């Protein structure tokens, strides 16, 4: 589930789709990495500034019971999995792997991985996945992150139930423009409307 957000002075630009990081009472949290002008304007906002937002939009990860789940995130894919982890039923155990370029991109999780080796495993999160799946009898995978990571991960999960939260450029965010559609099954489905969470076994990764 996500919101479309926009900071003041960005009125002529498109909204930025951002996943929910946390919900506590009537308070919503977003966890934003500054990547361009839109996210910088959001990060620069001060108390009392007026934020424009549309939402909530899209679907959510299915919250399954009595499972051994692997949570795999990379880069800006961390926030939705952090919220998922808090939302999952207690009967489902989780192991969270998170990867980033260096220590500044790492947030609380069981298995941090960095490209430069400054924290945790030096290398990709996917380096650790096959061994963990076997050792921990993983029967469920949730993921969010850069496309190369997701592709690699999907190829490693075989028939294990796997739900991926997908990123896409969006114009409308509400299902109107079909700009964010990705190949799933035999159709192009909208990340904003039918997604952002899809059954990873249905996504045509080779076309992405």
């Amino acid at each position: 589930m996500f919101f479309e957000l926009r900071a003041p002075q960005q009125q002529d630009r498109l909204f930025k789709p951002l996943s929910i990081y946390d919900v506590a009472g009537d308070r919503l949290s977003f966890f934003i990495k500054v990547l361009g002008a839109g996210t910088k304007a959001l990060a620069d906002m001060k108390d009392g500034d007026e934020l424009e937002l549309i939402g909530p939009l899209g679907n959510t990860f299915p919250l399954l019971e009595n499972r051994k789940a692997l949570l795999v995130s990379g880069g800006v894919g961390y926030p939705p999995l952090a919220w998922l982890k808090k939302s999952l039923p207690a009967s489902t155990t989780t192991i969270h792997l998170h990867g980033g370029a260096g220590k500044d991109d790492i947030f609380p999780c069981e298995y941090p991985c960095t490209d430069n080796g400054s924290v945790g495993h030096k290398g990709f999160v996917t380096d650790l996945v096959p061994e963990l799946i076997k050792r921990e009898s993983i029967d469920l995978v949730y993921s969010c992150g850069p496309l190369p990571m997701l592709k690699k991960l999907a190829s490693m999960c075989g028939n294990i139930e796997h739900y991926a939260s997908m990123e896409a450029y969006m114009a409308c965010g509400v299902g109107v423009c079909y700009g964010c559609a990705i190949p799933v099954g035999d159709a192009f489905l909208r990340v904003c409307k039918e997604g952002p969470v899809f059954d990873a076994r249905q996504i045509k990764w080779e076309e992405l």
Partner: protein
Amino acid sequence: MNLIKAHLGRLELESPVTVASGTFGSEYFELRSDSDTALLPQSALGAYVSKTITPQPKAGNPHPRLWETECGLLNSIGLQNPGLQGFLNEELPRLRELLEIPLIVSFSASSIDEFCQMLEALETSDGIDGYEVNVSCPNVAREGIAFGADPDVVYELTSRLARITHRELMIKLSPNVSDIALIAQAAEGGGATSLALINTLWGMAIDWRTGASRLPRKLCGYSGKGIKPVALALTYKAAQAVKIPILAMGGISCWQDALEFIYAGASAIAVGTANFSDPGAPAQITHGLRDFCAVRGICLSEIVGSVR
């Protein structure tokens, strides 16, 4: 008295403000502001223009399909749509139920015969007030722009379609032609009752680091604020060349923009890319035009084409 009533061929519109095909869906009617009022009440629109439908379902173009620029938007959607039967069976009954305003159905095909078959099928359905014949999409290989660039083809297509329908028959023109006046005259000569212009301009974006095109099909459609002066000039050129009314679009995001197009010769306007960054824009434009006319003590139709 409604000072902003607009005449678009056989249709009388309560507001000159409509929406550009492909940039709008009924989802926008459901958005509510923080004070819990509709962001865009239907009554703010003069008509609803559907996404373009084609004879068969179209899957659309590969991902990614969008790239935002400093002052506009590049798209390569590829007319993704459920096809004629999908539209007639599912979309049309839903729209008929929902809409209190005229429905203009946008359609495209890959041969003149196919266009005619589409129109014959649509004619058998109630609840359609007019058509936008899309001969100008830059993002598909066979349908679209191949037709809209040749005056002889536009004339023949329009003549054949005009014999089939008594509903509003609007031809949607491309800016990517050498002389839009010739195409506009061909459509008028063939029996079109109005023109819609402009479809998107050719556009492209490349990642300078890698040399890779931002969008897989490389050439795509460019819309949004950046194209407004081009759209305005083409509206003026077309309006000088024909007597039928023009539904103009291209970078309109506020009522002042809309007025420029009306002075240039548009009888009605459509909001396209601006819907994405401001879903309430069509409503604000309708209110702005109404206030403008009230303050000036005029009817909007009096100033159509009156640029000095």
